[in-house]
């Protein structure tokens, strides 16, 4: 077995290894990619507005997925804590998906509309004034970073999201913190949710 030509010809070996690693890849990755079940979209789901997209960019820039997930599992306690479990069709405009893998902080899949804008502004500035034992970093400094409307417009174009010119001009003077709050408020709102019972 070990004396076969396979172990003497590196090119043949590489070709065989490539085929071997591609089998699982084709079945679990390329095949589903070509089916409709991997591209679902809820009826109520809308593309991000320029301000929301800018906020989503900030979410990525600050590495928020390091501590927050955006997917509620269909488990009893999870639905009680966060709200309706996540649906595949909610994420059609998320490139990439931002489900995360660690909950140092709570899941955010149903954060949209849960608190008023002012709550988020104040919480980002000083999380410990809301929850004394919170370990979240302060993000008030994002107020000092003004959005660049032409960058945001380029991002909207890259994703092919529709927008009106006045939505771009409205970004003038807005900060990264404003954008982040706008993004918080739209997360998970395509699904009607029953109120969660506790935090």
């Amino acid at each position: 077995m070990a004396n076969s030509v396979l172990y003497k010809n590196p090119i043949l070996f590489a070709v065989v290894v490539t085929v071997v690693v591609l089998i699982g890849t084709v079945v679990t990755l390329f095949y589903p990619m070509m089916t409709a079940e991997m591209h679902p979209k809820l009826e109520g789901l809308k593309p991000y507005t320029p301000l929301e997209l800018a906020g989503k960019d900030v979410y990525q820039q600050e590495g928020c997925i390091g501590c927050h997930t955006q997917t509620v599992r269909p488990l009893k306690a999870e639905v009680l804590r966060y709200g309706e479990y996540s649906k595949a069709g909610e994420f059609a405009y998320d490139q990439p998906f931002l489900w995360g893998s660690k909950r140092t902080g709570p899941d955010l899949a149903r954060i949209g509309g849960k608190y008023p804008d002012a709550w988020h502004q104040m919480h980002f500035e000083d999380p410990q004034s809301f929850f004394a034992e919170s370990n979240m970093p302060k993000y008030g400094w994002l107020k000092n970073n003004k959005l660049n409307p032409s960058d945001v417009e380029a991002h909207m174009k890259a994703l092919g999201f529709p927008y009106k010119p006045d939505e771009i001009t409205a970004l003038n003077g807005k900060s990264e913190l404003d954008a982040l709050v706008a993004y918080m408020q739209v997360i998970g709102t395509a699904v009607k949710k029953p109120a969660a019972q506790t935090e």
Partner: protein
Amino acid sequence: MSDYQYDNQTVKGFILSSIFWGVVGIVVGLLLSIQMWSPSHNFPPFFTFGRLRVVHTNGLAFGLGIGAIFGISYYILMRLTKRPLLFPKLARFHLHLFNVAIALAAVSLFAGMNQSLEYAELEWPLDIGVVILWVIFAVNVFGTIIKRKEEQMYISLWYIIATVVAVAVLYIVNNLSIPAGLFKSYHLFAGVNSANVEWWYGHNAVGFIFTTPILAMFYYFLPKSTGMPIYSHRLSIIAFWSLTFGYLWTGAHHLVYTPLPDWIQTLAIVFTIFLIAPSWGSVVNGFYTVGADWSKMRTNYLTKFFIWGIAFYGLQTVQGPTQALRVVSQLIHYTDWVPGHVHMGTMGWVTMTVAACIYYIIPKIYNTEIYSEKVANIHFWLVLIGQLMFSITMWITGIQQGAMWKAVNPDGTLKYTFMEVLSKNYPYWQLRTVAGLIFTVGMLFFIYNIHMTIRKGKALVAAKA
């Protein structure tokens, strides 16, 4: 000894670079561990947890991990083909380009350029740089093997070839993106599809960066340093093919209970369980190799690095599949259990094995002995204790978190708020910092030992001249 020159300078350059990036990654890791229990240690904008975490993971996976893989693979390659690298100047250029790329990568991550794809955070211009680095590596690997002076390809070469091929496929597919400016892009894939692509990549990056190249090192350096041949060649063949076949199906075990189609999750779980077999194929091979003479554990200081390293690989590859099961996943997923798991693999298996290889290579390059076996033993015990304390602490707090999150009162309401659960983590997170410190001190002993060995070697060379 032989009539050709090995390019030791490039090998040494990669090894020292990887140690340097390793120190950066570990120091950042320590700061992160402090930020977990002391948020006032966040220093915006560059030194906040969210930005630092990716510097930590990328610095260690790509700086320490890939750097060591490039250098040690070149070393193995030259010995197993009985010839110098086919393109030694290209290899030297590879080393410089590697360091430039890692430095730029670190700067870009500090600056917040982050694709938010775990282990693929780098933005598209750097992705292109990584691909160039990989192509250069592939050219030298294949060129040198094709022109080899040894008929058979030893096991380590199989694992190196598999690494070259698989990482290329994984990295390119997952990094396909739509550029939206020089430093910004969006994933080509959306929603559940994006998730499936990312974790197919993410899990197999573990497979083909933290597993196959490290196994290549293990299969080469264990027999070299103990003088005992690998127990079973047949077992290594079976383990190799079943590992490379099975790995690529398993990514979705990171997405259990998410909206990803159930059949992909289930298939991933099944193949994850299957992977125990080939993983333990290598574990058994390692143990039975040394089993011919266990006194080597006492008499040869490198043996215990390799045996404990492969033992952690064995534990890792049982714990991992267990975590994939739905009944376990629902409890520990998203908790601190998972970093506990990851760090057993990286601090136990990968770092121990790589350190042992470096202990073997550096004296060989200078034709001398290690500076101090005693210092190496202190290094060994400190990293072992630090890593065990880290992982065990995180497993305990992870189970506690998971259990408290799902606890309900008799009337069906939740028992604890999120903050109540979080505040229970603090003592464990503080202990983890202590564990990290112990590990870091161990690594400092390692660096000191390598430094002194090089000094000794240089003095020998100077004396001869």
